[in-house]
Structures are given as structure tokens and as C-alpha cells.
């Protein structure tokens, strides 16, 4: 059978493909790639309407109800970059930027700043920051399983700007020679809380990894495992975000630094948006999704 491929911008006819009913959309993407070399498969998204939802590439032509002379719309997602590449760039930046500013370079603080005394809290904060981002890099390399292979390149610049600039902003204040540490008790207690949150965040990532069989894109309802830190799944859909926000609040209390608080708030806002989206998706996809679970803040939302 023949399927006409139309562009989502303008409706122009791009190609006519000869397929059989059992062909998956993935195979169609390969065909199109052969015809138009710049449109590698990760850059393509099929839709049934120009502004409709993207179709799952594992579905077959027959499953979508397409017949001879049916039309499919193709959206060019723009230049793509692998998720892994994005994450590594996003996370390596803050790590090196903070570590650099921790040395108190003259560029930010003038000559002689490096020789002035540094509070113990500033050292602790540096370790926390570096450990956090090193953990993220390692998780990206070894733990996470990505449901989508790529994202648009322009996101990379936007995301990196956010991470790197905020890293410099926080680092500048905590490592400043005129930085004032809060009382030790406060910092130590907050450090304990931070540690729990980091371990908790990792536990959730680990649990989510084991939820999904290797190589698959299957989705299942996440539930607590033997690890007590995963009990948070009973209260929220995205406990990884809950722990992450907790960690940044802890960091803010350790350092008593308003810029760190602003960073924590910005992160919280973004993660809340993601959590609400994920929460809604879970409720839609699973009829038996546990009620009483909130998106990110237990009992609240």
C-alpha cells in the first residue's frame, strides 16, 4: 500500500512510501531517511494531524488504521542531540565552575582573595556541590534509562546557560571572602538532612531503573522496594524530585545563602511542573494508579 507523507509546516507532500500493513513507523522513518539524508530517524515525528500528538514509532501501519493512499504528517524536530550528551554537558559545567570559583580566582574576587581564611562551611558546601553533580554524572552514565534518545539542540544552550550561570551565582557568594557562615549546629544538622536526601534521590533513581527491563520503553507503576528511602513512593509520584528539592533546601540551610535559596526555588518550580505532568500521565495510563499519591509534595500537591 502507499502512504503519502506530508509536512506539518505547510502541508507540502514530502514523499510517497510503499509499505506493508505490518511495517512499523520506525521502518517508515528509515525509508524517509534514505530519501532525505538530513532527516535522520530521531529527527522525525509522525502525526495523524499537523498539530496532533506524536505517534509511537513502534506501532504498525495497520494498528493505526492506515489504508492505501492514507496520509501521515511528518514533523522535523530539528537537529537532535543525544540525552546523555546533554546531561553530561549540563552537569559537568556546574561542577567545574563551582570548583574553579572555590579557588577564589582573582577574576571574581581580586588579587589576594585566595589567601584569606575560608570558613569550614564553605569547604563543606564545596564538597556537597561537587558530590551532588558527580553523582548526577555517574547516574547519567550508569543508572538512568532514557525513554527518548534525543532532544533538540537548542535546548542544550538554554539548559546549560541556566545550570552554569546559577552555579557561578551561588559559588560566587558562598566562596566570597566576606561570606558569613551560620552557626555550626545549623550547618551540621542541615548536612545530615542533605545526606539523607542525596541517598534518597539515588535510591529512587535506582528503583526506577529496575522498574524498566533493559532496552525496553515499557512503563510500570513505581512502588516502594526493600530500601526504606523508597517508601516515599507511597506519598508522591516523583519522590526523586522531592528528595532533590529537599537536598537543595538543605544546602541553602547549610550555607544560609539567599542565592542558593533562589536556585533551590527555581529548581523546585521546574520540578513541580515536571512532577505534575508525570503524575497526570501516570493517572491516565494506569487505571489502578494508587489514589492519595500527590505529585511532588506529600499530602499537598
Amino acid at each position, binding site marked *: 500500500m502507499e502512504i503519502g507523507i506530508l509536512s506539518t509546516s505547510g502541508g507540502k507532500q514530502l514523499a510517497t512510501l510503499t509499505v506493508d500493513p505490518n511495517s512499523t513507523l520506525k521502518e517508515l522513518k528509515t525509508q524517509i531517511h534514505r530519501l532525505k539524508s538530513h532527516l535522520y530517524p530521531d529527527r522525525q515525528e509522525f502525526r495523524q494531524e499537523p498539530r496532533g500528538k506524536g505517534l509511537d514509532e513502534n506501532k504498525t501501519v495497520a494498528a493505526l488504521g492506515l489504508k492505501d493512499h492514507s496520509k501521515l504528517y511528518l514533523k522535523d524536530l530539528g537537529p537532535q542531540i543525544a540525552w546523555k550528551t546533554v546531561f553530561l554537558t549540563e552537569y559537568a559545567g556546574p561542577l567545574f565552575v563551582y570548583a574553579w570559583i572555590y579557588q577564589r580566582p582573582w577574576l571574581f574576587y581580586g588579587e589576594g582573595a585566595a589567601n584569606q581564611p575560608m570558613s569550614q562551611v564553605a569547604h563543606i558546601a564545596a564538597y556537597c556541590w561537587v558530590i551532588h553533580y558527580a553523582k548526577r554524572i555517574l547516574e547519567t552514565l550508569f543508572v538512568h534509562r532514557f525513554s527518548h534518545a534525543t532532544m533538540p539542540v537548542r535546548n542544550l544552550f538554554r539548559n546549560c546557560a541556566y545550570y552554569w550561570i546559577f552555579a557561578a551565582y551561588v559559588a560566587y*557568594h558562598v566562596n566570597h571572602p566576606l*561570606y558569613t557562615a551560620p552557626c555550626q549546629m545549623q550547618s551540621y544538622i542541615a548536612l545530615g538532612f542533605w545526606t539523607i536526601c542525596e541517598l534518597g534521590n539515588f535510591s529512587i533513581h535506582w528503583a526506577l531503573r529496575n522498574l524498566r527491563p533493559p532496552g525496553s520503553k515499557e512503563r510500570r507503576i513505581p512502588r516502594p522496594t526493600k530500601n526504606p528511602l523508597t517508601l516515599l513512593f507511597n506519598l508522591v509520584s516523583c519522590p526523586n524530585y522531592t528528595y532533590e528539592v529537599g537536598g537543595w533546601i538543605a544546602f541553602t540551610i547549610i550555607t544560609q*545563602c539567599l542565592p542558593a535559596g533562589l536556585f533551590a526555588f527555581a529548581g523546585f518550580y521546574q520540578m513541580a511542573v515536571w512532577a505534575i505532568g508525570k503524575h497526570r500521565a501516570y493517572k491516565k495510563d494506569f487505571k489502578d494508579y494508587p489514589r492519595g499519591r500527590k505529585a511532588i509534595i506529600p499530602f499537598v500537591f
Partner: protein
Amino acid sequence: MTATKKAPSRVLSLPAKIYLIFYNATQFLGWSFVLYKMVDFVINQHLEEKSLWEHVKIPLLIFQSGAILEVVHCACGITPSNTIITFAQVYSRVFLIWPILYKVPDSRDQIGFSLLLLAWTVTEVLRYLYYVLNIISFVPGFLLWCRYTLFIILYPAGITGELLCCYRALPHYSKTQEFSTLLPNAWNFTFNFYYYTILVMLAYIPVFPQLYTHMFVQRKKILGNKKHD
């Protein structure tokens, strides 16, 4: 310069319509007055002892500050514009008139201020008149043409003026550290108005091309298909 607003006059309630006519008419008259004062200053050169700023500052400050209401209008839904974009536009205007022009005498009475004032007054007079007439669905073709054509010159002129005024105000904030918070303090927070002003100026770089091209797109859409009245 704001993004296009097409007031959905058929969807608005009558009180909202009446309020908007009143608001836009007031702004039209206010900015016409600023324009009049500006022209009056230029023509009557005997006003040399006063500066252009002194001559226009009261109505300029009043009516430009009044534009803050437009953010509220968006948030309440009585105008269809995007609240965030409107906020950014009003913010840049309010930033210019208060911490720059009002606060720093050095930023006034140079070519930057003249460009800014010319661009703002002509634009706003046209814009508010357009809104009033649009609500009652009676926009003359000539006004429409002006609104979607004069921006081509006025927008860059205005931006140049705004940036020049900001630039002229920088030394004041660098020297006096006004509106700034320095270390040490309990919350380990700093705010430097000098750097903040530079940041605002830099923000023009990504934002201006987008808004400018958006106006061209609107122009093509609106003037491209219209027949003259």
C-alpha cells in the same frame, strides 16, 4: 512597543469595554500631551533655561507609570496579550523612567533621551488611539498603516535612546552603589544595581530582534490582506 493587541470587542462585557475605552482614551490624551510638550519645547527655543526632561517629566512619569495597569489587564483577561511579554515591555519602560531618568540627571538631555522621547510619544499616541477605535470597531486604514509601519524606524530609534540613557546612568550607580546590597550580611546576598543595569542592557540583544521581527510578521498579516477604507 508592544506586541499586537486585537481587543476581542465581541467577547468583552460592557463594563470591561467601557473601562478599556476610558483607560486607552486617557492614555491617548496623556501621551498626546507629552507629545505636545515635546514639540512645544523644540519650537519655542526660549525654553533654554529648562531642559527637555523638566518640560515633559510630569506627564511622562504619570502616564508611563500608568501602563503598569496593562499588566493587570492581561492577567485579568480583559486584554488578550501575553502577560509575561507585556510585563517585560512595561518593566523596561518603568525601569527607564524611574531608576534611570528620574534618578540620574546625567541620563537626561542628550541625544538618547530625545530619541527615546520621540519614539515613545509617537508610538504611544498611535497605539492608544488604535485601541480606543478598535474597541468600537472603527479603525481608519491610515491609522492602521501608521501603527504597523512607523515602528520600522521608531522601534530601533527608541531602543537606541533607551540604551544610551542606561549607559549614561551607569557611572552614577558604580560610584554611589545606590540600591545595592554588599557583603557581609546575614543572608550572604549581594545585589549590585550597576551590574543589574548592564544585565538589563544586555537583555535587549536577544529580545529586540524577536519583537522586531514579530512586528514585521504582524504587519504582513494585517496590512498584507487589508483593503483601504
